């Protein structure tokens, strides 16, 4: 547990794992109160998941364009430096951004043999599975974010030939800075291309995994409050 620095006086794991679990217990014992508290938030959350699903779809189109671009470049004997790396980043973006969306649509695979045995198991086993999944996903997200920050601190650069304009980095760097630091950042920004720092594409991993963790917690709360799962899947994929 040495890896969990304190945050607002309590260790980080308390905030990430214990507090949501306590809230899940509230949903279990006071379902009507939980529903009243959350029923305005849930539609908003659904839209957020959908929005990231759409973002992920856009990145899938980008993969297609990058690969077609690479082929065209080869046929015309021009070079497309870093095309493979960019396609890889786009791949990571599609995968991570859609994790939560796929979850809410019931697309992720699970072994449902015991789940469908009877009504008791359907509720309690699902609740247990979601709680374990939520812990795992939270752990995943926590380390994804940590790695993301570490890549930035270590100034980890790509191993390939892919370059991005420096202003793009400054744009994303702004989100992690105080407004009074923005001026300094931009004054140091040249109009040149720089080798892609790993933290830039890793933002997709951080956002995607955080969203996945939130989505699982969210659906655990819904399950406990409604006493039945709110994940509905298409009849046949």
């Amino acid at each position, binding site marked *: 547990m040495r890896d969990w620095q304190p945050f607002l006086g309590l260790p980080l794991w308390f905030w990430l794992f214990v507090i949501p679990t306590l809230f899940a217990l509230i949903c279990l014992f006071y379902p009507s109160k939980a529903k009243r508290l959350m029923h305005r938030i849930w539609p908003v959350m659904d839209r957020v998941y959908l929005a990231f699903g759409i973002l992920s779809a856009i990145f*899938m189109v980008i993969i297609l364009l990058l690969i077609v671009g690479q082929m065209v470049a080869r046929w015309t004997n021009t070079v497309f430096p870093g095309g493979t*790396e960019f*396609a890889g980043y786009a791949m990571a973006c599609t995968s991570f951004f859609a994790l939560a969306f796929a979850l809410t649509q019931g697309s*992720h695979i699970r072994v449902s043999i015991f789940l469908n045995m009877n009504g008791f198991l359907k509720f309690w086993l699902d609740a247990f*599975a979601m709680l374990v999944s939520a812990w795992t996903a939270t752990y995943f997200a926590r380390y994804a974010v940590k790695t993301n920050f570490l890549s930035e601190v270590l100034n980890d650069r790509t191993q390939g030939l892919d370059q991005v304009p420096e202003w793009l980095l400054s744009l994303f760097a702004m989100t992690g800075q105080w407004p009074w630091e923005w001026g300094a950042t931009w004054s140091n920004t040249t109009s040149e291309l720089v080798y892609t720092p790993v933290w830039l594409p890793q933002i997709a991993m951080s956002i995607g995994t955080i969203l996945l963790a939130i989505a699982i917690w969210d659906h655990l709360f819904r399950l406990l409050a409604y006493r039945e799962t709110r994940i509905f899947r298409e009849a046949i*994929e």
Partner: protein
Amino acid sequence: MTELYAIIIFLFALFLLLGSSVWVGLALMGVAWVGMELFTTRPAGDAMITTIWTGASSWTLTALPLFIWMGEILFRTRLSQDMFRGLSPWMRFLPGGLLHTNIAGCTIFAAVSGSSAATLNMVGKMSIPELRSRGYPEYMIIGTLAGAATLGLMIPPSLTLIVYGVTINESITKLFMAGVFPGLVLAGLFMAYIVVWHFFGTGDRPQKEPSMPFSKMIKESLFLVPVMGLVCVVIGSMYLGFATATEAAAVGVVGALILSAVQGSLNWSTFSVSLMGATKTSAMIALILMGAAFLSLSMGFTGLPRAMAELIESYNLSPVALIAVLTVFYLILGMFMDGLSSVVLTMAIVEPMIRTAGIDLIWFGIFLVVVIETAQVTPPIGFNLFVLQGMTKHEIGYIAKTAIPMVGLMLLMVVILVIFPELATWLPENIRQRN
């Protein structure tokens, strides 16, 4: 001794998490975490993310969403219906009649789609009502369909083979090529079964199809041309070395989009539904792959795979015996989980074994697909059975019974693969490499 503990703890955690219906990808991560915390001093979380990031941002993997998308486009637009229409005139004269459209339809749709559920869904949607109205016996309609749909994973593109290739670092193009002949042989076996049933069956074969003027046959079969052309371009470009698997997938998507646009069935709704469907499926597979990447890292630290490989080696099993054992193992595993999950779950352990035994990994991929697909039509958990149940409203048990002859044929296919390994290895050895 440590290995024994490792096995017990891994298996216990695995069964607990998977059995309690934790999503497969997250369950694998959980098991891997347990392994890392117990058997190594390395920080589990950091190692986990490094592995997952490397895997998730790899270029090889991009073939996956693109092939899924291509299948989705064909599935959501009218292209596949047309393909079916073009197919039936040529099947009506064969003994067994239109039942052959089940097999041929699945074979062709398998060549544009990487999943057996999609193949089953697509072909079944069109052939079941048609065959029923012509009075073909129900058990033959459903049985042949359940069997033939498994071709979806054999004939390239195949999602399972992509996942297998990414997991063990083998060329996806080679794996795809390896699937071509075994897939066709399996389709041939199914068709032969229909013919045998026709001549020696219990006599409930339907009346002969009415004849069709030749000009109409030609006209109808023109509907086959677009999809067949797409299949040829996608597989041909890989075979001739013009394109890697990923590029062939991109060509496939663009081709499918153009064809459906020309045909007039591409609109905003079919486009967006196919794109979102592909997004979901590829995220699902990505999560499993992330879990599997971490699990194999964790298992590597425990030394379990090497120990298992040495153990198997010390038994002095012949490759054939090893394959027989693995067949039974995967059939049992496939009773409880889907094909993709059983591949990623076991590869960390099985790969060293196979390498030590000197078995060709490309060949093994094809073997794996046949066995896993067999498991998909055996109860209690068989994904193809579920899809068929949703479509026909029959009991799982009934569908499984109708599929028994097909299961037999697929096991025969495993034997054929063992006797004639060239079936799978010849084509990949003879593709032109791009220079």
